[in-house]
């Protein structure tokens, strides 16, 4: 999809292995790319790891636990080693949605900013119903 960027930290074979796992978690659909199709294994996982170094160890453990096992092993990992799976899953999803092209495809502009005017007149009719039902607090007993 985009520039593969600079690979750091992981070997090519580790990236390939991670990519296979990531594509099980985030597969391709008609509308959306798979994890590897969105450069998760080649680029965005590095960005995600740079922001979550606390997960690096558990992420490595997850990949080690899945090495050489079949595609269903990731679901077994989720059951048997949820902490490792959580690190793997958090980084995979986090990396996927760091890709601006993915964000555009799901319609997420990011946390945008917007100025605003007074909205109260636009819903004051609804508030009148609330007010018309009268006070609903219990006063301090005397």
């Amino acid at each position, binding site marked *: 999809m985009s520039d593969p960027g600079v690979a750091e930290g992981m070997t090519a074979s580790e990236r390939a292995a991670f990519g296979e796992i990531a594509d*099980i*978690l*985030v*597969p391709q*659909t008609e*509308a*959306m790319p798979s994890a590897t199709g969105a450069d998760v294994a080649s680029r965005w996982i590095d*960005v*995600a790891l740079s*922001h*979550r170094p*606390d*997960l690096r160890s558990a992420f490595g453990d997850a990949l080690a636990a899945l090495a050489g096992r079949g595609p269903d092993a990731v*679901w077994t990992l*989720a*059951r048997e080693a949820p902490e490792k*799976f959580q690190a793997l*899953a*958090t980084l995979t*999803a*986090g990396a996927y*949605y*760091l890709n*601006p092209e993915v*964000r555009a495809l*799901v*319609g*997420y*502009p*990011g*946390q*945008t*900013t*917007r*100025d*605003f005017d*007074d*909205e*109260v007149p*636009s*819903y004051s009719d*609804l*508030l009148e*119903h*609330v*007010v018309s*039902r*009268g*006070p*609903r*607090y*219990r*006063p*301090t*007993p005397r």
Partner: protein
Amino acid sequence: MTPPRHIDDAVDVIVIGAGASGSVAVRELARAGMSVVCLEQGEWTHRADFPGERPEWELVAQHRWHANPNVRAGPADYPINATDSDVDPLMYAGVGGSTVLYAANWVRFVPADFRVRTLDGVADDWPLTYEDLAPYYERTERDMAVSGLAGDPAYPPGAPPPLPPLPIGKIGRKGAQGLDRLGWHWWPGSNAIAARAYRGLQPCVRQGTCMTGCPHGAKASTDLTHWPDALHHGATLVTGARVREITVDRRGRATGALYVDRAGREHFQAGASVVVAANGVGTARLLLLSRSQLFPDGLANGSGLVGRRLMMHPFAAVIGHYDEPLESWMGPAGQTIQSMQFYETDTSRGFVRGAKWNILPTGGPLGVRWAEGDRPVGETWGSNFHEVVARGLGRSFQWGVMAEELPDEANRITLDATLTDSDGIPAPRVVYRTSANSQAILDYHVARVREAHEAAGAVAMTTRTMRDCGWHLLGTARMGEDPQSSVVDPWGRAHEVPNLYVIDGSIFVTSSAMNPTATIMALALRCVERIIDERRIHEDPR
């Protein structure tokens, strides 16, 4: 060999903690001309550090900016043993305290919250009334740039907030339409977030990242609202100061505080009075740490209640999905609208007390996925991965339900036998179980909230409860008239130590079901003005 101890210059008042209540105390004491030193274990948090404007916001929100100190594990944080607690305590260590990361929901208690025993026959009445606190609420609302709308029939009449309400947005409007169809109460959310430029705060721009710090300077955290004025009036702030003990003399009066700086050096700060403002966990921990011959069970703990009666608010989130775009990443977050339809006691429901509801946005793709976090892995990953985000992103919102927890002496803070912070000081241990009454409140309210979503047109719903909901740390040094059944008097002064004050959420008698910061700060203002008025500090005959 004992390391050398640095002796700092004596002051009129030592304030321990620079958060919501400590900020109030320092500013008012400094304005009154007293010499004040505030000892704060954390540091300043700079606006540029807040991640809300960056693409990695949701990823780092789960760690570096997480509200759970055990997850965040920053250099200023102390660990908490919460293995025997249903709820994880949340807080932030730094100038401004937890107001740096809070959602800024700004709600007063209602009158009945101060008369729980009289009205509902459970727990205890407060030694003050809503009317006693109302003037302090009003002043604090001005200090904290509260944006809201006057006239809410859930409250007695009073002065309007200083700023107009923030937009309720598409999600607030959708929720309000549902409640309107049911004939249920709602009101625009009241938030300590500036709707307009106000006293140095910038206007809100609805970025929706309030709970990881406001990068725009619109949210009223006390590092912005109180500390500039406090420093201008001569207060001294010592950051990186982890207090390990409040010392006493032979007569049982507080003499000062021992603290460790970030270089590991121990200091003694002498003061004529000591004000503790370290939150419902940290304050209890410090009092329990401050054991001596006169106070073998902890300072001011003759009642045995220091650390007991901990109250945190059990919380449930009901996320509704809608078949229309709602821009549900837009702020405030913050609350867009709130409802108190079922807040007051109705015993026909099978429980006493109630819950407050408020609407929050669901954020970006990771926030939407979080909402589905309780579902089996196979339902949210693999072939279902994209469907989760497609269904919820921009098309969902959360009704949050916050239930009142009643005081129970078994729910408590103690000192852990083995766990310590990075300075070797014993860490707090939390024992906390959600009561059957609170669970009944949550169950009932979740069912009603689901009806509210249905009435608003939701096509699907997900309900989540979570451990990470202990934002509100209350009750561990309760106030009262009777020294046998309370730790401090109605103005925060310790019954047993006449120059020691506690002014944070620890002194709450009951928890209400409200976000407590408005009451914490109003109460702190009331307490500190009493200290100033009586000039108790000058009565110290040392």
